[in-house]
C-alpha cells in the first residue's frame, strides 16, 4: 500500500473533496458501473478528469478507487459530482436481496454457473 491515501494524510483528501466528508450518492454501490459521457475539459479537477479517462469503458466504483489510489468514501463523493453534472452515468447492480425480493433469479445463477464452468 505504498501509494495508499492513508499515508498522504487526511488533509489532502479534504482538498480533493473540497472539504466535504459526506454528501455522496449512497446508491453508488461498490460494483456500480460508471461510464464516462464526456471528455475531460481544461480546468477540470484532475481527479475528475482521471475518472473520465478511466471510465471510457464501464468500470466499477471499486476499480475507480483502486486506480485513483483513493479510499472508496472519497471516490463516491467525486463520482457523485460527475453523476450530478451528467458527465458520467451509473449502471447500478440489482437491488440488494431480501426475503421479500430475492435478487437471485435462476437465470442469473445459471449464467454465473455457466461462466464459472467455462473458466
Amino acid at each position, binding site marked *: *500500500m*505504498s*501509494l*495508499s*491515501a*492513508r499515508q498522504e494524510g*487526511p488533509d489532502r483528501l479534504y482538498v480533493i473533496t473540497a472539504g466535504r*466528508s459526506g454528501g455522496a450518492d449512497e446508491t453508488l*454501490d*461498490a*460494483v*456500480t*458501473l460508471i*461510464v464516462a459521457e464526456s471528455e475531460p475539459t481544461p480546468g477540470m479537477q484532475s481527479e475528475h478528469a*482521471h475518472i473520465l*479517462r*478511466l471510465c*471510457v*469503458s*464501464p*468500470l*466499477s466504483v*471499486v*476499480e475507480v*478507487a*483502486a*486506480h*485513483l*489510489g483513493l*479510499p*472508496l*468514501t472519497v471516490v463516491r463523493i467525486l463520482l457523485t459530482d460527475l453523476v450530478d453534472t451528467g458527465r458520467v452515468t451509473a*449502471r447500478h*447492480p*440489482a*437491488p*440488494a*436481496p431480501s*426475503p421479500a425480493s*430475492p*435478487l*437471485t*433469479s*435462476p437465470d*442469473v*445463477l*445459471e*449464467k*454465473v*454457473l455457466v*461462466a*464459472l*464452468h467455462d*473458466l
Partner: protein
Amino acid sequence: MHSTTSESVPADRTGGAPELPLPDSAAQALKLAVVGGFGVGKTTMVRAVSEIRPLTTEETMTRASASVDDLQGVEGKSTTTVAFDFGRITLDATSVLYLFGAPGQQRFWFLWDRLFSGALGAVVLVDTRRLEDCFYAIDRLEAQGTPFVVAHNDFGEADHPLDDVRAALDLDPAVPLLRCDARERDSTKQVLIALVEHVRTLVKEGRR
C-alpha cells in the same frame, strides 16, 4: 487505525487505461465475497480466478469512538480504515462478477455492511490452525441470511477430516464444506461453483 496486510499491489496511478476493459454493454455487476482471517489465502483465491491482477482499495468509516477504538485513546470521532482486495470475472456481454477478499474479524463489520450488501453469497476460507478466525464471519453470515460455503484451504495437504472441521465449526449440516487449494485455479473454481449451486438450491427451496 486498523489495517490489513495485502498480498496484492496498488493499481498504477499514471492515468493509463485499466487492463482488459469491460465490454461497453456491461450493465449488471454481481458480487461474491471471500472472507477469512489474515493469511488464510483470500487474495490467493481471488487471484486464482480473476481476469485482472487483483486490485486493492480502502474503505474508511468515521464514527463516534466505539469500544473497539478505545485502545487508541482518542476522544470523539475516530476513523477506521480497512484495505481489501478484489478481482473480476466477465460473465458475458452484459454481466460481470466481482470477487472481494475481505477480513472477517468483528472489527471490520462496517465493511461487510457496505461491501457485501447485495452479494450473491460468500466463501468462508478457513485454516485449521486458526479456525477461530472465522467464527465471527460464520455467525454474521448466518444472522444476515447470506448464503455461504466453507472452504478449508489446505494448500494441497489434506490434514484434517472434513467431518472434524465441520464439528469444530459447529456448522449447519446444510452448509457445504469442501476442501480446496486456493492457489489452484480449478480448485478455486470448484469452490465458487459449489457456492453458486448452494445459492441455487436455496432459491429453489424458496429460502432465498
